[in-house]
Each structure stands twice: as C-alpha cells, then as structure tokens.
C-alpha cells in the first residue's frame, strides 16, 4: 500500500483471523486456512489423480505419477536403499512447502512459508528426525560423526566444536533460507507495485512510466514461480542429504 509516499512492505505478512467470529474465537488465522487448503489440494490431487488407475495416464494422473516418481527418485538417489522408508516424509514436506510457496503467489492469498515460525518448525522436525534416526541406527557410535576418522588427533579441540556448531546451525540455515526467499520475493512485489501507484499518481507522463515497474512485476512473478519450486526442492533435498548422513555417518 502506498500511503503518502511510504511503502508498507511488511504489512502483507500480518496475521489476521479468518472464517469470521468462529475463527476469531479459536485464533484461526489466514495462515492456518492456507495450510488447510494446501493439504486439501495435495490430497485431492493424489486421490482424484490416481482414481482412474489407467495404464495410459490422463493429465491429472500423469501429474500425480510424475510427482510420486520424482520424489521417490530423489530419495533413492540421495539416501540410498534405506531411502524408501523416508519417502512419505520427504513427499509430504516437499508438497507442503511447494503448495505454500505457489498459493502465496495468488493475489489476496497468504504465503505461510513466509513466517519463520512455520519454516523453523519444519526444520526442527527434520533435524529431530535426523538425530533420532542416527541415534537409533548407530547408538553411541553416532557421536563419532563429530570427529571424522583419520583426522589428526591434535586437531580434535578444533574440529569437534566446529562440527557440533555446523550440525546445530542446520535447522537455522534451513529455515532462514526458505523464509528469507519468500519474504524477499514478496517484498520485491510490494515495492514495485508501490512504484506503479506512485508513478501513476504523478500525472499522464507518470502513467507511461508506470509501465516499467508493471512489466518488471510480471517478470518477477515468473521468477518467483521458479523460486517457489527451487526452494521446495532445496529444502527436501537437504533433508535427504541430512538423512543420508544420519543413515551412513559420512
């Protein structure tokens, strides 16, 4: 919103209660509503997509099959043979983030992945799962992860803290990457959209000039579509890599 020449870039991330009085009484925000819509879309894609069970798939079935095959391929490739166990988790994670990013690009909607609370909870789930898996497979042997075999013993006081810090900073970098990407993208939209309003308000010559930021915003939407896919992909592939580390210990 361009009120008197100032750009309110972060106002779009404000949480409000949705669904009227009922929603307000349980603090049901538009973020929760978008999460429900995203989950519903994924489930209905899989349900209605796979219902025909055709040998030659139609469009919807092909989409569901490509999604399934793609994520399963990623699991097998990154984690190895044990990847099959984690496939449902990775699939859910990927599509929850992807749908969050994509739905946020629709006008008047809300990007739930633009809140650090959401992305950090996702990252924390991942890191707790990774640690639990590693501990349950390797037991106490897991702690050799912080000191690679073959490294000189003299360097131990240096290597071990560095490894521990890098292990603990994984959820932070994982969550901030996704959250910052989404926030930066939407702030850019807001800033350029404000330029359109400001220039158009400056008279007929400004109207012509406003075509510039408008065209830029159109290009940005295309770029943000790419980023939406890329960030969901990066989040899930990094989860796969961490799981690989947990299963195989280096």
């Amino acid at each position, binding site marked *: 919103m361009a009120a008197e020449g100032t750009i309110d870039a972060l106002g779009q991330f404000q949480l409000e209660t949705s669904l009227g009085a009922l929603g307000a009484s349980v603090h049901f925000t538009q973020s929760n509503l978008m999460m429900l819509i995203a989950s519903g879309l994924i489930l209905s894609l899989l349900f209605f997509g796979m219902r025909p069970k055709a040998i030659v798939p139609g469009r919807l079935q092909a989409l569901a099959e490509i999604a399934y095959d793609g994520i399963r391929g990623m699991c097998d490739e990154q984690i190895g043979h044990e990847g099959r166990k984690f496939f449902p988790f990775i699939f859910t994670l990927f599509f929850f983030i992807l749908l969050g990013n994509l739905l946020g690009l629709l006008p008047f909607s809300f990007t739930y992945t633009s809140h650090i609370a959401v992305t950090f909870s996702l990252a924390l789930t991942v890191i707790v799962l990774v640690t639990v898996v590693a501990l349950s497979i390797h037991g106490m042997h897991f702690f050799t992860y912080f000191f690679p075999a073959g490294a000189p013993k003299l360097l131990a006081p240096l290597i071990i803290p560095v490894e521990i810090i890098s292990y603990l900073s994984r959820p932070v970098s994982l969550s901030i*990457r996704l959250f910052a*990407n989404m*926030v930066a993208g939407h702030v850019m939209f807001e800033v350029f959209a404000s330029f359109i309003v400001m220039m158009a308000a400056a008279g007929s010559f400004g109207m012509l000039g406003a075509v510039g930021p408008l065209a830029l915003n159109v290009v940005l939407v295309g770029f943000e579509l790419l980023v939406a896919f890329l960030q969901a992909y*990066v989040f899930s*592939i990094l989860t796969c890599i961490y799981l690989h580390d947990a299963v195989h210990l280096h």
Partner: protein
Amino acid sequence: MDVLAAKALGAGIAVIALAGVGIGIGNIFAALVTSVARNPSARDQVFGLGILGFALTEAVALFALLIAFLILFT
C-alpha cells in the same frame, strides 16, 4: 545524524555482501557451463548440483537482504 538517514545508510552498507554472492553465483554457473561443455552427457547430474549450489549461495544474499529489511522496516 538523522535516524532515518542512518537507517538508509545502514541498509545500503548491509547489502555490500551481495558483491561476494554475485562472484559466487557467477563462479557456480561458469563451472556448470564448463563441465556441461566438456561432458554434455553429464548434464542431468551436474545441473542438479549446480542448482543446489546456486540456492545455497543465494541464501547468503538473502541473509544480507533480510538484515537490510530489518534495518529499514522495523
């Protein structure tokens, strides 16, 4: 100094980090182009790695951008 002016300056200084990120992303794609040119059949495997490297490097840019936003808008 005026607080608003100091904020604008601070945000500007915060995004100097983007210079390094620019060099990094340039390096990643230069290496990607070179490797695909040398061995076009490795394209599919190398492309995924390149995109992963790009996203990890871009995250650094976004940390800097985030600091700039925090300075400007809070």
